[in-house]
């Protein structure tokens, strides 16, 4: 009738099939190229990758970040100590580079936790709506109304301080934001016709949420994740600056800035380098977010 299906495949068909596959591969290659050519993305990525490498390997080639040297306190940058020494005579370069370690453990894990919980909550509230949605979203509103840092301090002083608890606290406090983003994506998606079709097939709710809707809202979840990651770095640093979270003698940036700030007029290098390190990581993460967004929206 209308468009008869040829019994066997013609050469042209096989050709066009191969063309399609080629085209897909070409598009993927193009995207990778576009990312590689995007200065935003590349600067962000190199800065983040650099810090990851430092976190892993910096102690192989620097002096020990923990060796106290009472004879050499607050030395200005020199050949022996490229970035000077701090109030206990520890090498600032070694401590700054090693300081990436704690933040690169805390921030990604906290973000991951927030993504997991936020996505689950967002899926459930967005999908069921009604009273479940009302109750959970009001709770979310309450959580959102709490200032993150003050709440974290409260919880940490109640529960005691450990890296694990810092991760959980940041993760929990970031969950509402993620769940909001996910919920709005789910609300949009659940009205789509393929979701209606799945209901007419008698699919269970969890199937519709996990298999039908979730694969189609990964883009907003990834973007939200990178945004949260930037903030998580920041929050983790703030908490250790305030003395909640990592404890001395950890070379953590926030902690270092806090403990050395007393000497900033005498020895600016003890504070400025960890601060630059922190800023470069946060900016790096944000640049990656921007770069991804720009290339994919083309």
């Amino acid at each position: 009738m209308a468009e008869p299906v040829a019994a066997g495949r013609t050469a042209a068909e096989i050709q066009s099939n191969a063309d399609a596959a080629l085209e897909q591969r070409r598009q993927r290659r193009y995207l990778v190229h576009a990312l590689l050519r995007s200065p935003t993305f590349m600067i962000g990525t190199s800065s983040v990758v650099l810090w990851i490498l430092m976190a892993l390997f910096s102690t192989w080639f620097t002096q020990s970040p923990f060796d106290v040297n009472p004879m050499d306190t607050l030395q200005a940058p020199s050949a022996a100590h490229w970035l000077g020494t701090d109030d206990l005579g520890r090498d600032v370069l070694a401590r700054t580079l090693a300081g990436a370690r704690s933040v690169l453990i805390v921030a990604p894990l906290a973000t991951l936790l927030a993504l997991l919980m936020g996505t689950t909550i967002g899926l459930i509230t967005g999908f069921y709506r009604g009273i479940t949605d009302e109750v959970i979203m009001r709770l979310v509103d309450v959580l959102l109304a709490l200032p993150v840092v003050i709440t974290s301090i409260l919880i940490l002083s109640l529960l005691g301080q450990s890296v694990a608890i810092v991760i959980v606290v940041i993760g929990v406090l970031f969950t509402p934001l993620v769940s909001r983003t996910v919920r709005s994506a789910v609300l949009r998606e659940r009205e789509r016709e393929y979701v209606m079709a799945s209901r007419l097939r008698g699919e269970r709710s969890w199937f519709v949420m996990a298999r039908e809707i979730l694969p189609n809202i990964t883009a907003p979840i990834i973007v939200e994740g990178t945004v949260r990651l930037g903030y998580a770095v920041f929050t983790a640093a703030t908490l250790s600056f305030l003395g909640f979270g990592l404890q001395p003698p950890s070379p953590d940036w926030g902690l270092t800035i806090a403990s050395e700030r007393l000497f900033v007029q005498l020895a600016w290098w003890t504070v400025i380098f960890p601060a630059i390190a922190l800023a470069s990581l946060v900016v790096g993460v944000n640049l990656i977010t921007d770069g991804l967004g720009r290339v994919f929206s083309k």
Partner: protein
Amino acid sequence: MSDVVNEGIGQTGAPQAAAVDVRDLEVTFHRRGRDLPVLRGVSLRIAAGEAYGLVGESGCGKTTLALAVLRYLAANGTVDRGDILVDGRDVSTLSEEELRKWRGEAVAMVYQDPATALSPAMRIGDQVAEVFRFHQGLNKTAAREGARESLRKVALPDPEATLRRYPFELSGGQQQRVVIAMALAANPRLLILDEPTTGLDATVEAEILDLIEELRGRINAAILLITHNLGLVARLCERVGVLYAGRLVEEGPAREIFTDPRHPYTMGLLRCVPRFGMNKSDAALQTIPGTLPALGEALQGCVYSARCPMAQPVCVRREPDLHAWPGDGGPRARAEAEAAPADPAAWSPHHASPVGEGLRHARCYFSAEVPDMPATTPVLSAPGAVEEGRAGDVLEIDTVRRSFRDGRKKLVAVHDVSLNLKRGETFGLVGESGSGKTTLAKCITGLIAADSGTVSFEGKRLKPTAGRRSQAALRAIQMVFQNPDSTLNPAWSTRAILTRAVRKLDGGSGSSVRAKVDELAADVRVEPRFLLQKPMDLSGGQKQRIAIARAFAGDPTLVVCDEPASALDVSVQASILNLLVELQASEAVSYIFISHDLAVVRYLSDRIGVMYLAELIEVGSAEEVFNPPHHPYTEALLSSIPTLDLDDSHERIPLRGSMPSLSDPPSGCRFHTRCHRILGDICVEQEPPLQEAVTGHTYKCHIPPDELLRAQTEVDPLAESIST
């Protein structure tokens, strides 16, 4: 090639007074590192005061042409070649500042969706006045006066009140009037209408067309109408250009081209629109096989050769020129092409579009044979729909009502609708948007629950929501949705989609599922290779075929089709409709077919129901409903369709006012506020009875059938009575 009209660039010193002169335009888009030619040497001229229609499937480059004329191409689009002159001015030479000024003064464009053309945060008055202030330099009060005057010109009721309103307070038709008012405010030399009525209901569309037609007399602008609706062009335009894959394939006076097309593509387009009054038992719809070449696809010879039922080897050897018709340009060029060495890659030399009153051109070697173009589908169609032996009711709907809450207000979207449906029957549901068609469909399938009333299937009462229905009931009643882009899960492969449907609806496992999926794909004529792909890689028609296959996975008894072909191009629409007819013949399935396109509904349906403001106001066989006596609303609806039949003998019946709100429906007869046959107080005070014209044909009106018949068959019914 001498009879290719050589009024080319440079040869005519002073061209005729063309308001728009596009010469040899080539536009390329650059996407993800590739150059995709969209327009390939298009030339056209539009005289001042002339209306030119540009038609073709979506993706042919119609809108790109319009945007290029306005120099509004997206950042990744470039004009590689050619000139665009508007009123003798070369658009490409304008500086940014001149361009801004020129766009405000000399050209105007009306887009498809009026809602997005207006700023939602500004009052209508301020928006319209802005045009006068910025482009004509008027002060505030003068601009305000100008705005008021221009709203009056587009026949908006109560312009004074409209000025103070926000866009969301206006109906779609009123919004489009405002957009047109703004477009005309500066007395443009060129008015571009890009699908100006596509999003509007038939009756509103008719009003806007009347308005454009009337305004044409008063403004001396060239009009470029871009549309896929050939009926619209037939009604509004003097000349028409048919665009295919970025090439103009035929051009000339609209009337001649529509009655006597000389390019196979034009012929194909005309043939695949169901003619009014045609029914599925008469003939299958003609289709255009294949799909539009993808952007950037390498083309050999004639751009249309891959889909052309008349294509010969010579068509691929070299592309034909746009030659004059009548004339011997076609055959002579063909002889030349056959003699020339094969060079499929070479474009034929560029020719400026020949322009002249009454001249026709076609880009085909075989123009002379186009009237005898072979049919693409067998003319014989499916057997008669209902086999009498099985004709029991499969579906009974009894006084179903459904309302929604809108803040404090309660909107009754479906008001006590009852109907029944036989096995193998198609029930067409028509009505304007907001009349409750889709809500009723969702009540039937269980996507939403009815507030009251019952839906019974094969004598058994169904649970109100799909979630509570048995798997057997779900399998029996399936749905095909409107939007091909969201009907399939974009994250799944086509095979996964069908496999899941077969597992849930048909049962079975392993190889039997696989076999069933292959069978379904073959039934809907989707080639196996597309099963590996994601919906994104399929065309709209293919997506809709997969959606149909999904609905048929469990051998349903009833399939509810909610505008399944409305989002598709006419050629694809025809093949989807053919598929539905075919499946019905082989599977004995019943359809509820919802559409706003009356010709399509007429073609497909055995019985038809007309909805107005949540009520079913008329039910009968397709034949009966479309002929007098019928409900006055149906009468008005039918009169409003722009058709290709150019005699235009039917008088259009304009509806008064706009659609009343569902939260506060009119008393008595719901249609009385707009009815042209209103009797008087009885219509306002009493709900009309259900009148029976013949057995099985009922309508809700106070006028008895014989009187209605008399009134509706009078020659010149009510020309005067409604002129106010």
